[in-house]
């Protein structure tokens, strides 16, 4: 078992002044987009450690994503979906939901923006259309419950909602889900992320567990699925079970990192069912994770996620922070499977 690295990575200057809800690396550069409870979306150059822009909203921003290197999108608690233009530092409202917008994803394959809200709907937007809800809204798709997490791979969209529902869509035919599933984990879904190879998804819960699922319904594929426990500790005769807030897949190796309320980031090899690495403990809960496009950087949002309710005061070392760490190949590269020598 590899030992934990002493450093947590380089801390970005000018972090948000309240909890971090999500962070995303650009697909084209080392720019990092960060959304926060302080009602802002911030754009950083992660490699240069420079704040490039800031966009203020009317309410907390629950998610954000890139369109390209010149623009991005945000999902806010004021029910709005906004387009952010980095060069001019301007923003415009693409449209609205009837409740806070929890998740946002841009599909390069479909050229559409997908948003999920606590109003129990999924909405697809065409950002190329002129501003104004009527012109940009492609469709509204009712969900069984409030949307908690979204993930895209190619034309596949996975939607995880409250009540442990999981809907799988083909973006080319959104009229109804391709599959309706129930989470194989018994507790509330926290995060869902598709495998980079498009064969399935990882889903985490508030009960320190991650399930590895497959889209293909054949018996052979379904036999491969499994779940494992993580982000737990034994202390004073009791087992403390932490929510698994974040999952991020490495773009090159297909291994993945998980972040939990225990303040740890673990790297896993899903194929070999092994933990590859555990980074040293961060000051507080891990709210979000993102690998850069080439997998050389890992952005870690260390930020209290409200798992223990309102806190009177935050210690100085528990302040919300963004760490960008250089990823060593040994931490993320899957180890070849060693088979025992057959008996003579």
């Amino acid at each position: 078992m590899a030992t934990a690295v002493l450093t947590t990575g380089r801390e970005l200057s000018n972090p948000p002044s309240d909890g971090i809800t999500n962070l995303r690396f650009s697909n084209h550069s080392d720019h990092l987009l960060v959304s926060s409870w302080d009602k802002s979306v911030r754009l950083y150059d992660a490699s240069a450690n420079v704040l490039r822009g800031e966009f203020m909203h009317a309410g907390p921003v629950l998610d954000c994503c890139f369109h390209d290197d010149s623009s991005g999108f945000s999902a806010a608690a004021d029910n709005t979906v906004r387009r952010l233009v980095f060069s001019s530092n301007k923003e415009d409202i693409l449209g609205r939901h009837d409740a806070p917008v929890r998740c946002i994803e841009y599909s390069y394959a479909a050229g559409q923006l997908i948003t999920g809200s606590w109003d129990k709907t999924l909405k697809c937007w065409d950002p190329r259309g002129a501003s104004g809800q009527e012109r940009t809204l492609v469709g509204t798709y009712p969900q069984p419950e409030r949307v908690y997490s979204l993930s895209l791979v190619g034309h596949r969209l996975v939607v995880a909602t409250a009540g442990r529902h999981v809907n799988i869509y083909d973006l080319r035919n959104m009229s109804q889900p391709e599959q309706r599933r129930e989470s194989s984990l018994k507790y509330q879904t926290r995060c869902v992320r598709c495998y980079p190879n498009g064969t399935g998804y990882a889903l985490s819960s508030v009960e320190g567990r991650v399930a590895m699922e497959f889209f293909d319904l054949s018996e052979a594929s379904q036999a491969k699925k499994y779940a494992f426990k993580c982000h737990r500790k034994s202390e004073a005769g009791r087992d403390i079970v932490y929510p698994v807030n974040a999952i991020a897949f490495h773009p090159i190796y297909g291994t993945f990192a998980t972040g939990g309320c225990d303040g740890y980031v673990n790297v896993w090899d899903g194929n070999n069912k092994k933990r590859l690495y555990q980074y040293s403990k961060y000051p507080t809960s891990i709210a979000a994770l993102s690998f850069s496009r080439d997998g050389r950087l890992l952005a870690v949002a260390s930020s209290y996620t409200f798992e223990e309710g309102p806190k009177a005061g935050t210690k100085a070392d528990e302040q919300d922070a963004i760490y960008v760490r250089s990823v060593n190949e040994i931490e993320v590269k899957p180890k070849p499977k060693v088979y025992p020598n057959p008996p003579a």
Partner: protein
Amino acid sequence: MGKKKKRVSSKVWCYYCDREFDDEKILVQHQKAKHFKCHVCHKKLSTAGGMAIHVLQVHKESVTKVPNAKPGRESTDIEIYGMQGIPPDILAAHYGEEEDDVPSKAAKVDIPPTQLVGGMIPPPLGTGYPSRPALPTMPPVYNPAVPVPPNAWVVPPRPQPWFSQPPVVSVPPAAPYTQQPLFPVQNVRPPLPATAPALQTQITPPGLPTSAPVPVSQPLFPVVGNNHTTTQSSAFSAPPLPSSVPSVTPVMSTNVPVDTHLSSNSSVTSSYQAIGVPGGAASNSHSYASGPNTGGPSIGPPPVIANKAPAPQPATNEVYLVWDDEAMSMEERRMSLPKYQVHDESSQMSSIDAAIDKRILESRLAGRMAF
């Protein structure tokens, strides 16, 4: 049914819990973490006997059972290391197990009917067998407080596969239901009151519409051995039947995930499976404690009626769930704080308009227009 399970002979498995592993190194790792670990100091020993000796010599306690082992395989006397030392009869029995002993791992998936050609069910979804009872039939237990059914009563049919239609069993009117025993006896069901409809336990195979359920004969509660007189607080004690009993539709969990308990996964090595039972607390080797400041009752996993009794497990740590509110997410709870309360711009505008209208109305009533 009698078909032998196709097993890859290279697969190794644990004598104590029947779990399979890809190689013996991982099996040994598993045994050390799950079966040969000292419950006092958590030291990992190489064999069950070694663990028993360690506990006796170092902690002055005696260990007679291997932790987390299946019933009948708890002896510390058999020297097992990986696959070495497994009695030949158990080896033979393991490789000769029948296909239907393996729990179904089919995903619980609902495919919209329009995607099925001619309304057919895809092969992986269209096959299934009812699970067999985990324990042998218990001898009848009699409780004087529970009336014994008369000989004339119709005996319910034996369990059938879900695809066949068993005959409907009619329950004749019974005497008025007066008193429940103080300690309900496990697996002895009092007669239904005259007003109660027949209990039906239904399971719909995946892919078929739920409007046409197929009855399956299932026990109302999981079978628990030996605890014939359990208190009402027991997870498996039968709750008093109400005056009218609704039809019971259990959630059949065909999709129990396989936990990969690798020694590197986490410091917590105890495995648990919560089973919810109507009228009883969740049966669990751990008690889930409520998370702090989450402002609501501890909501466990959705109820599942299980046919198998949980394997007897050693006393384990209490499990404390940091976030235990199943009704809402952390973000939803956080949004309820006053500092995050927002109104979108349109509602803000309407509230401004309302304030202006109110001001105009007030000034008119006062007999002057003041802006």
